[in-house]
């Protein structure tokens, strides 16, 4: 589904990604872990097409299309979804209206009729249950005055509404208390269906107790330095990221 080959990227003059290789098949859940500054969020941004980053080498194919040639909106329309680490506020635009616009833009791209109000509301009701999100939140301006947990839940709700084929969760667990974390994780788990793939970016192992990955990769200095099964996450939790550095033969600072 998603093939990343030797991906290099930089922001301004600073190299952040130094040759990422990753292959995600339909239905798989991959977790990317790594210390701060290792390039985790950059990878998410580059895949979604944020203009601040420049891809200097490598290729990415998504559903056999060259992802890097697509505009950010076309990537989304092709089925790539990014749950933002810091969801953006848009004053005066209700969450419902925003999602309806998004759903219909994507349908238009696929040559489908826009969804009528009845269908849309029905679908909304169904997905609201999935992430335990309240109707009143959806009538408010998008993310404006939302708590951290509400913002993240709203991201997962949007994901449920847009039904992507490939979802990237960028540190969705950051700033969540344990209850919110469980709700968000359960929402994600309900969206796992054997075809939809996930790339879960996280700093802590905690999230992976709830969203159990098929593969765990450790990102360090813009490269995947270690890959393994879900047990790798536990090992990292136990030993800390320093053990990776030791394995790489780097000296560990006190």
């Amino acid at each position, binding site marked *: 589904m998603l093939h990343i080959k030797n991906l290099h990227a930089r922001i301004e003059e600073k190299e952040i990604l130094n040759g990422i290789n990753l292959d995600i098949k339909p239905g798989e859940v991959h977790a990317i872990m790594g210390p701060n500054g290792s390039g985790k969020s950059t990878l998410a941004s580059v895949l979604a097409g944020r*203009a601040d980053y420049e891809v200097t080498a490598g290729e990415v194919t998504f559903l056999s299309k060259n992802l890097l040639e697509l505009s950010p909106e076309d990537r*989304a329309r092709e089925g790539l979804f990014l749950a933002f680490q810091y969801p953006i506020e*848009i004053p*005066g635009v209700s969450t419902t209206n925003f*999602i309806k616009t998004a759903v219909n833009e994507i349908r238009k791209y696929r040559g489908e009729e826009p969804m009528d109000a009845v269908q849309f509301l029905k679908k909304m009701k169904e997905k609201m249950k999935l992430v335990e999100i309240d109707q009143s939140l959806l009538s408010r301006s998008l993310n404006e005055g939302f708590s951290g947990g509400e913002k993240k839940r709203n991201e997962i709700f949007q994901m449920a509404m847009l039904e992507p084929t490939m979802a990237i969760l960028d540190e969705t667990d950051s700033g969540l208390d344990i209850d919110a974390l469980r709700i968000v994780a359960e929402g994600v788990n309900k969206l796992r269906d054997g075809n939809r793939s996930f790339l879960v970016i996280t700093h802590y192992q905690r999230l992976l107790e709830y969203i159990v990955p098929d593969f765990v990769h450790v990102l360090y200095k813009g490269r995947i330095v270690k890959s393994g099964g879900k047990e790798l996450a536990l090992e990292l939790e136990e030993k800390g990221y320093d053990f990776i550095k030791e394995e790489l033969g780097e000296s560990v600072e006190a």
Partner: protein
Amino acid sequence: MSEMLETLEQTALSDYKYGWVTNIEADEAPPGLSEDIVRFISAKKKEPEWMLEWRLKAYRHWLKMTEPTWPNVHYPKIDYQAIKYYSAPKQKVTLNSLDEIDPELRATFEKLGISLDEQKRLSNVAVDAVIDSVSIATTFKAELAELGIIFCSMSEAVQEHPELIKKYLGSVVPMTDNYFTALNSAVFSDGSFCFIPKGVKSPMELSTYFRINAENTGQFERTLIVAEAGAYVSYLEGCTAPMRDENQLHAAVVEIVAMDNAEVKYSTVQNWYPGNKEGVGGIYNFVTKRGICAGVNSKISWTQVETGSAVTWKYPSVILKGDNSQGEFYSIAVTNNYQQADTGTKMMHIGKNTRSRIVSKGISAGFSNNSYRGLVQVGKNATNARNFSQCDSLLLGDKCGAHTFPYIEVKNSTAQVEHEATTSKIGEDQIFYCNQRGLETETAVALIINGFAKEVMNQLPMEFAVEAQKLLAISLEGSVG
């Protein structure tokens, strides 16, 4: 950063879809302004002597005045002798029914989306259509007359209701108020008159559509709305003009009188030709609008969506004279390319427990400049006056300007005056977020702008709101991405 910023910087010509000219034979005055021209206009309209005297008095006063230079706008000096002050479509003298309207004219209004055909009219709106200097047709007159509502052209009102005109014309905006009101008082050609008698609530929206068609012509219309005790009316005003390379002057005066417990809601969608991408042509829109809450518990509410005109100078105001009266001003002003707008309001608190609310949303794009200028005045006897003002500016790109000039004068210590102001840019983050959900940049910008303007949009009557929303999108087309 760079790529998005570049696209933000690019400004493109927004389509002005009302830019056509109708070939209608016109009856015109020669260019220039003199006492003779004032007499010519008055004679053309077969006005009584008192009206002519009123005009001449205004003209003589105007001669002694100078054009204001304090607004934050810049334009070449206007040659008042090059303007034609009267132009009327030639047609049969009186119309027995709307069917007799020149087909070209009828087509003009159909293009504007205004149906003059009462039979086919679905929505509940009575229309007075003014082209160049004269009112062409007023619909639903008979139905309104049954309720005692007078809704007719100003020329007709001068003939048919001289006592009302003598009493109210110039009573809110004195002819000597400013340079443009003096000019307007001397040469005003037509406009609408609306009188809602005691206790009557108008069952339909009343509206005037203004259209400048002829070349080198100024448009100087006057609107007068009087709501007697307990009366209510919602009034709509729309305007368009052809695309021409020269600038045309539009200097209108609108006066509103609200007696005890009366309410007048006045909504404008101003879409005069804004000039082209390089700033050539367009309308100079120098307008004085003022209402007086003369009676207790009365209310006047101005809502405006300003997307057109090369230069705008306009401050719809409310004199809060009656105790417990209320004034409101809701505004969206959009400037793109080289447009300039200096607009806002004045709220003059005179009576006790008077309240006013100002919500101004300015959107600037291209190389334009958008200024909010507002005055909140609380008089010595205005005990417990309240004002809330909110002025938000949104910038698209980094070559445009937003300015806020709030003036507050308080002479009573019980007053509460609040002012909030914000300036923001459409963020790249916001656009990227929308892109990531499948919205292209243009759609994202339209969505963000409509969200920004929502509070004001909500004040517009439904039919107008839809039109205004489309207009916002068109006015800013190509200004981002």
